[in-house]
């Protein structure tokens, strides 16, 4: 039950995009179409979950015993980059339908700061393995919710009459502000 509250707090209350500001680039870049946003969100769930577990293992089983924790940034970014490559190859070989759906978003995930952010937060906040599992799963679920909701709003914005200087990213950012305001309403839950 405690873990459930822990998960809810990271999905809604401390939403990674709207309160922690991680993964903003794809949040603005891949949210013009709700189908693509859904694909991006699913790919992110997969990569964050895998990289969270792998980096946690590497930090505690390799870097700590060797007493080189300052190498974490270098190793983590390598792990993430190769993991993304690996996921891409496996999907291409075994689940081609999912690969073609996620295809173009996979390489973009390497530079999504949410991935490295979650890997670093697992270490910095001193989570144990169960907490790492729950955290690495609930954060990207929050990401998926935020980017999908945001993309459906943006689809409607396309049709509305907006003052010229506000067109494009400006109005999108203001919409994100309103969404962030709405998400602060969840603060009472956890």
């Amino acid at each position, binding site marked *: 039950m405690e873990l459930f509250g822990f998960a809810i707090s990271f999905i809604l209350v401390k939403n990674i995009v709207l309160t922690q*500001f991680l993964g*903003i*680039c794809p949040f*603005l870049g891949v949210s013009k179409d709700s189908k693509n946003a859904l694909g991006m969100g699913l790919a992110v769930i997969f990569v964050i979950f895998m990289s969270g577990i792998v980096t946690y293992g590497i930090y505690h089983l390799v870097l700590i015993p060797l007493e080189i924790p300052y190498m974490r*940034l270098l190793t983590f970014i390598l792990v993430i980059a190769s993991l993304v490559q690996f996921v891409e190859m496996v999907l291409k070989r075994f689940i081609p339908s999912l690969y073609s759906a996620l295809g173009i978003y996979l390489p973009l995930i390497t530079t999504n700061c949410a991935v490295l952010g979650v890997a670093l937060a697992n270490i910095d906040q001193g989570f144990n393995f169960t907490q790492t599992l729950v955290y690495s799963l609930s954060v990207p679920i929050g990401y998926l919710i935020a980017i999908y909701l945001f993309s459906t709003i943006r689809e409607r914005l396309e049709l509305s009459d907006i003052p010229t*200087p506000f067109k494009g990213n*400006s109005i999108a*950012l203001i919409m994100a*502000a309103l969404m*962030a305001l709405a998400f602060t309403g969840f603060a009472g839950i956890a």
Partner: protein
Amino acid sequence: MDKKKVFIAGITKENPVLMMFLGMCPALAITTSIDNGIGMGLAVIIVLLLTNSIISLIRNTVPNEIRIPVYIIIIAAVVSIIEMLMQAYTPQLSTSLGIFIPLIVVNCIILGRAEAFASKNNILNSMIDALGMGLGFTLGIFLMSFVRQLLGTGVLNLHNMFDSSVVFFQFNIIPKDFVIDIFTQPTGAFLTLGFLVAIVNAITSAVKKHQANKKVEAK
């Protein structure tokens, strides 16, 4: 290549924060105070200068197929060094920027400039480009933090980042009862950037119109 043009482009036409929408995460997250904004800006300038010059030096030796991983490793190494230096010499700033210092590694500006500029140009031009882009980024997040700190807390101040007890200046502009608290919160970050971008858009289109009119008159 015109060095002045390269330098100016990073600050105005290709401003990473306000025009290109690169490096948004730190621009939104840490701009609650001018101290943070300037500290982050300086960290990015230093990282960008180092990575751009290193990558420019090795641009002809790195095989084309593996250039991106090589760039990422160089960037991660430089950021690790900066992170440790900041922990040692600017502990206060390091605490308040927190996870966003190691996240400079995945800041799109750094890899973007490495790929788009440093891998094709000599070291001097790459350094000028790094300086221009870095200053452009700093200008963008300085504007953000200026607005957010002013409206959110009513106070404008700047501390010495190496010794936080030294205050460079402190102005109490808006009385405590009239501050808009929401500007220090996430909502305020998105709102501030949204309006800043709209203002920049309005200015650019006005400038373009002015230039077009001038051309017509000249004819």
